[in-house]
C-alpha cells in the first residue's frame, strides 16, 4: 500500500511544477498593482480633506494635493485649542501611522468579500456554533485537544515541505523529530510529548507563507466560502495543500500499516470533506467565544477582519 501511494505521487511532480510556475507568473504581474493603487487612494483622501476644509464639494487636481494638505494642516491648527500638543502628537508618529502610510489595502473584491463575510457569519452562528457547542458538551476537553493534535500531526508533510522550501532546515528537522515522537509514543499524534517532554515547538508553515517568503505579494483579499478570510496568494497555496498534502491522503501513506486505507469510500471527496468538517467542528469547540469577541471589537466588521488577517499573515511570513 505504501508503495502504491508513492508511485501515485511520482506521477504528479511534472504537473505540480507546471502549476507552480503558472502561479508564479501570475503573481509576478499581480504584485505590481498593489502599491500604486494604495498611493492613489492617499491622494484621493487628501483631495477629500481639501474639499471638506474648503466647506464645499469642489474637486481639486491630484497634483495640488500636497499643497492642499499643507493648507489644511494650518486650518486645523487655527481651530485647535492646544496648539503645541497637536502637532507633536502626530508628527512623532509620522513614520508609523503618518498619512503617507497606507490606511487602506487594495481591495477590488470588497463587494463580494463583504457579502461572503456575512454568509460565513451566518454559517458560524446558525450551523458551526450550535454543532460545536453540542459537540463540546458531549466530548471531554482532553479528547478534543487530542483530536486536534492528531490532525495537526497529519499536517506534518505540509509543514515539512514548506519549512524546506523556505530554507528553514533546522525547523524542518525539529518538525521531523516532532512527527517521529508524536506518531509513536504520542499515540498517533493524539498526545504531544515532543512539546511537553522535549520542548520541541511546532513550526507551522503553509504554501501561502512560502510564496510570501519567495517575495510574492498577497494580491487582492478574498473571503472564501466556509474557510473565511484569505487572499489570492494564500488561496492558490491551498491547492497543492489539498491535492498533495491533504491529511486524509496522508493518513494512508503515514499510517498505512494500520490498514485504515482499506476502509471503503475513504478516497471519495465527500469523505475527505466530511473529515475536514469534523476537524473544523472539533477545533471550533476549543475556540468558542473568540469569534464573537472579535466581532465586537470591530466597528466595521469586514475591513477589520481583512486587516486582521493580512497583518497577521505578514507577521507569519516575516518570521
Amino acid at each position, binding site marked *: 500500500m505504501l508503495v502504491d501511494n508513492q508511485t501515485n505521487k511520482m506521477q504528479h511532480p511534472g504537473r505540480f511544477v507546471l502549476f507552480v510556475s503558472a502561479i508564479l507568473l501570475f503573481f509576478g504581474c499581480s504584485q505590481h498593482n498593489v502599491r500604486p493603487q494604495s498611493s492613489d487612494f492617499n491622494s484621493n483622501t487628501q483631495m477629500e480633506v481639501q474639499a471638506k476644509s474648503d466647506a464645499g464639494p469642489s474637486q481639486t487636481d491630484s497634483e495640488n494635493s500636497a499643497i492642499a494638505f499643507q493648507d489644511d494642516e494650518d486650518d486645523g491648527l487655527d481651530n485647535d485649542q492646544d496648539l503645541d500638543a497637536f502637532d507633536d*502628537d502626530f508628527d512623532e508618529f509620522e513614520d508609523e501611522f503618518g498619512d503617507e502610510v497606507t490606511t487602506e489595502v487594495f481591495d477590488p473584491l470588497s463587494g463580494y468579500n463583504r457579502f461572503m463575510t456575512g454568509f460565513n457569519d451566518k454559517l458560524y452562528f446558525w450551523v458551526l456554533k450550535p454543532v460545536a457547542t453540542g459537540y463540546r458538551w458531549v466530548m471531554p476537553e482532553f479528547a478534543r485537544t487530542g483530536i486536534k493534535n492528531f490532525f495537526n500531526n497529519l499536517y506534518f508533510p505540509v509543514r515539512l515541505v514548506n519549512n524546506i522550501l523556505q530554507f528553514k532546515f533546522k525547523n524542518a528537522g525539529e518538525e521531523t523529530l516532532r512527527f517521529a515522537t508524536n506518531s509513536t509514543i504520542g499515540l498517533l499524534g493524539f498526545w504531544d510529548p515532543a512539546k511537553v517532554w522535549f520542548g520541541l515547538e511546532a513550526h507551522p508553515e503553509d504554501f501561502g507563507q512560502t510564496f510570501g517568503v519567495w517575495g510574492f505579494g498577497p494580491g487582492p483579499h478574498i473571503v472564501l466560502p466556509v474557510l473565511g478570510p484569505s487572499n489570492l496568494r494564500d488561496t492558490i497555496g491551498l491547492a497543492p495543500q489539498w491535492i498533495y498534502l491533504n491529511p486524509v491522503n496522508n493518513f494512508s501513506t503515514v499510517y498505512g500499516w494500520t490498514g485504515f486505507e482499506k476502509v471503503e469510500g475513504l478516497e471519495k471527496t465527500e469523505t475527505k470533506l466530511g473529515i475536514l468538517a469534523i476537524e473544523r467542528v472539533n477545533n471550533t469547540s476549543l475556540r468558542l467565544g473568540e469569534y464573537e469577541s472579535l466581532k465586537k471589537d470591530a466597528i466595521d466588521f469586514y475591513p477589520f477582519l481583512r*486587516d486582521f488577517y493580512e497583518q497577521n499573515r505578514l507577521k507569519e511570513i516575516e518570521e
Partner: protein
Amino acid sequence: MKILLFSVIIALMMPPLIFADETAAVKKDAQQRINAVIDHIRDKSLDKKTRNEKIIAAIAPMFDFSQMAKLSMGKKNWSLMNPAQRQEFIDLFSVRLQESYLEKLDLYTDEEVVVDQAELVKNRIHVSSHLVAKDDKIEMIYKFFKKKNQDWKVYDVEIMGVSIVQTYRSQFAGILKNQSIEDLLQRLRQTGGFTVPTGNY
C-alpha cells in the same frame, strides 16, 4: 586634553545607558501591572464589577488612551473634528478598548502571561509578552513612547502582528470616506455592547 577627550567619550556613551535603564524600568513596570491584573483575575473573592474596576485601575495608567485615539483617527480626520467631538471620541474610544480588554481576559481565564523582553526601537520601547493559551501562544507587543515631562506610555498594542491602532485607522478611514464624523461617533456610541462594561464613563 586627555580628560576632555575622556569626558566627551563618556558623554557620548551616556544616552544609551540612560535608555537602557529606562527600558528596564518600563519592562519592570509593565510586568508589575500585568501581574497585578492576573492577581485580580485569580482573586475569586471579588465580585465581577469590583474586579473589573481593580483591573482597569491597575493597567490603565500604562496606556495613553487619548494618544491611541488620535493616532487611530489620523491627523487629517482629527483636524476636521471640533473640540467637543474630539473629547467624546477619546472617551468612547478609551471605553471600547477597556471593555474589549476585559472581555478578552474573561475569554482566556486560566492562561499565563509571560513578559519576555523590552527593547529600544529608535525612541520607542517595545515590551514583548506572550499569553500561553491552551494550545498555542499569543504574542503581544506593548509599544511605549515618551511625551515631554511624562512617563513612558503605551500608544499601540500589537497582537500576533496585528496593530490595534492600525486596524482602527483603516476602519475609521473607510467609514469617513462616505460618512461624516457625527455618523462615526453615532456608530461608536452604539456598537460594542461588550458583556463586561466598565461603566466608569
